């Protein structure tokens, strides 16, 4: 008798645990899957180029997501628009994003429209090399490993960084590695300022 009631509770336990998990998965994973999978790409959004995708990998590898979100919020929630971060984003803005990079932290500002606020490649390269040369008080890490410090004659096709005078070292060139160029190409692709239909805005 006792053994039997024990068996019943094992079965109850397992089936209850699985049923509950199935319910939650249905609500939080499957429902969004079915409601969002047919989202058409907006007219103003083009797929990433190969270089931008490489840059996106670099964004992931170096953990930019741990300080930067990519989801401007609506004016009722936060003054993101007033800061020039762009309109509230909608699911259609992310149709080409695999994996998603929405982020959960704003140690630094939102980047979904960084290309609009800061369209200069030189600025981005210099800022990656030494953020404090451009934004005093910034706590963003410097990324010198994305660059080479060279002396001597410039090579053909190299992209060197123009730092503000007080950060320059005499006779030394700061040359962007390919990874830095890719990363900046990705950052310069981040522009979701095209209009979207109002109905597409998440309630």
């Amino acid at each position, binding site marked *: 008798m*006792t053994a039997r*009631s*024990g068996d019943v*509770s*094992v079965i*109850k*336990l397992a089936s*209850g*645990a*699985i049923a*509950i998990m199935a319910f*939650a*998965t249905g*609500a*939080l*994973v499957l*429902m*969004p*899957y079915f*409601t*969002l*999978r047919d*989202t058409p790409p907006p007219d103003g959004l083009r797929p990433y180029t190969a270089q931008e995708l490489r840059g996106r990998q670099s964004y992931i*590898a*170096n*953990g930019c*997501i*741990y300080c930067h979100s990519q989801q401007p919020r*609506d004016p009722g*929630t*936060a*003054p993101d628009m007033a800061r020039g971060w762009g309109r509230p*984003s909608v*699911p259609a*803005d*992310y*149709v080409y994003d*695999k*994996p*998603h*990079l*929405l982020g*959960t*932290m704003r*140690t*630094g500002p939102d980047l979904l429209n960084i290309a609009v606020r800061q369209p200069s490649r030189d600025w981005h390269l210099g800022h990656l090399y030494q*953020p*404090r040369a451009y*934004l005093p*008080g*910034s*706590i*963003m*890490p*410097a*990324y*010198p*490993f994305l660059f080479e410090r060279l002396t001597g004659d410039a090579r053909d096709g190299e992209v060197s960084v123009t730092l503000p005078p007080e950060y320059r070292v005499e006779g030394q060139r700061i040359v962007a590695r390919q990874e830095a160029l890719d990363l900046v190409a990705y950052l310069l692709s981040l522009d979701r300022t095209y209009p979207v239909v109002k109905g597409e805005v*998440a*309630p």
Partner: protein
Amino acid sequence: MQFSVGLLLVTFLGSVAALGLFLWSMSRGLFGAGEAAGRVIFASKEIGLVEEPAATTAAAEGALQGVMNRTGHTGEFAVLTPEEADERLLLDESSRLPVLLALSGAVAWLVIASVFGLVASIKLHAPDWLVEQSWLTFGRIRPAHLNAVAYGWCSLAGLGVSIWLYPRLLRTPLVGSRTAAAGVVLWFIGVTAGIGAILAGRSAGLEWLEFPWQADIPLFVGGTLVGIALLRTLQRRTVPHLYVSVWYISAGLIWLPTLLIVAKWPGIHFGVQQAAMNWWFGHNVLGLWFTPLGLASIYYFLPKVLGKPIHSYQLSLVGFWTLAFFYSQVGGHHLIGGPVPGWLVTLSIVQSMMMIVPVVAVGVNQHRTAWGHLSALRYSPTLRFIVLGGMMYTLASVQGSMQSLRIVNTTTHFTHFTVAHAHLGLYGFFSLVMFGSMYFVMPRVMDWEWPYSRLISLHFWLVVGGFAVYFIGLSIGGWLQGMRMLDAARPFMDSVTVTEPYLITRTVGGSLMTLGHLVFAAHFGVMLLRRGTRREGAALLRRPLPTPRSSARLATDGGVP
């Protein structure tokens, strides 16, 4: 707007109805055993007898028994017969290999993870420190810290304690000790590979899911092997009832692989849907993996040390099922205000509030069990960690529910406040409970007492003090950061500069915690080598041999033997 309010109401009423249905079915006995199940962790006449292998001297265990005799005398026999003690020795013996492997691995990861965390913390106020190597950049060290904590320290500690608990809970020697040991080793290899991949820049990119799928394979296989050993033990059980800890651990072992499979399924997740999935996973791995393992430990060690059954066994089952149901749906609250469907966020907010039900169930149960015996904390290191950890569980959960409310979330989201909250759960609750559990388990596994009782106290005060500094500092900093960020009249940079003193405070707290972990790891190492002061305390099952005569004396004169 009206739609949202309607949805809110419907979800809420639905949840309350589900809760009512569950309570009704339990009152009809559909969920089994009742109070008798609460006694299965004790031998036939053991209630009233304390068990605390980490009691630092024989006198301390005597004093602990004395406290319970004064405050909790149940009128029962308080006897562990020599036969029962021998049986328990065999049970503890059966799981030695996998438990030792898992706990040693856990301690190794604890130390590594602490160093990662400390480096990441310093980098936030010294951004030009250690920038020349890519693997040391903040964006790699930080996820390495998180994953080393979650899958290295917490999971291995949870697995080790669970493997040790199963034979005791089911009164059956572990079946397949080597299978479980192989599983633990594979798990360790998976974590090592995953952390290596993150540092090498091969992260998969999703928070809590950074390990590339190749590293998840040994994790998955290893977890399955441990699961097989535990399942086979479960099939051979000799107890008439399943104790609630078995429910928690077994369910956790069902839930974690399900979560991993869905989250890692290649090629199906995209964009915003993936973000929803990400937080379904991120929160469930906390609520349906770490929380069950932590609560399983509390539900065993708290009554076992005190020699007194849990206050209400039925209530612990209410806590179990409501935790499962409500917690599994809260993930969406990480996307409040984000570009996700409104109903999803609403559902998660409602269930986050409903989480108060299981939290109160657990809180009341612990409180009613421990209340009146708080002086026992003086003599029991296990209790000290576990009771405090249990209180942190209540605190973290209530705070989590509050943070899901839009009005609070708007300020705290995207800030260090959330980071502090995460540490309250995984450190204040889970890690403290694991420390307490390991203080109990290790003497039984090694058949050797903790050599230096002062190191236990030092460990306790360093981590508790350090964590208090960490949590309070970072919570204040995070809140101020959120306030500045919401103030359109201030430049964004204000929200950065305001946090600086608090980020330094966090480094101070984190350093103390790390120091505490080093003390613990050193003590653990000495224990593994069976070095240090050999003490002949009451902690070892073989030595105290509480014969009927001596226990009866204990129970009547209530003093040190």
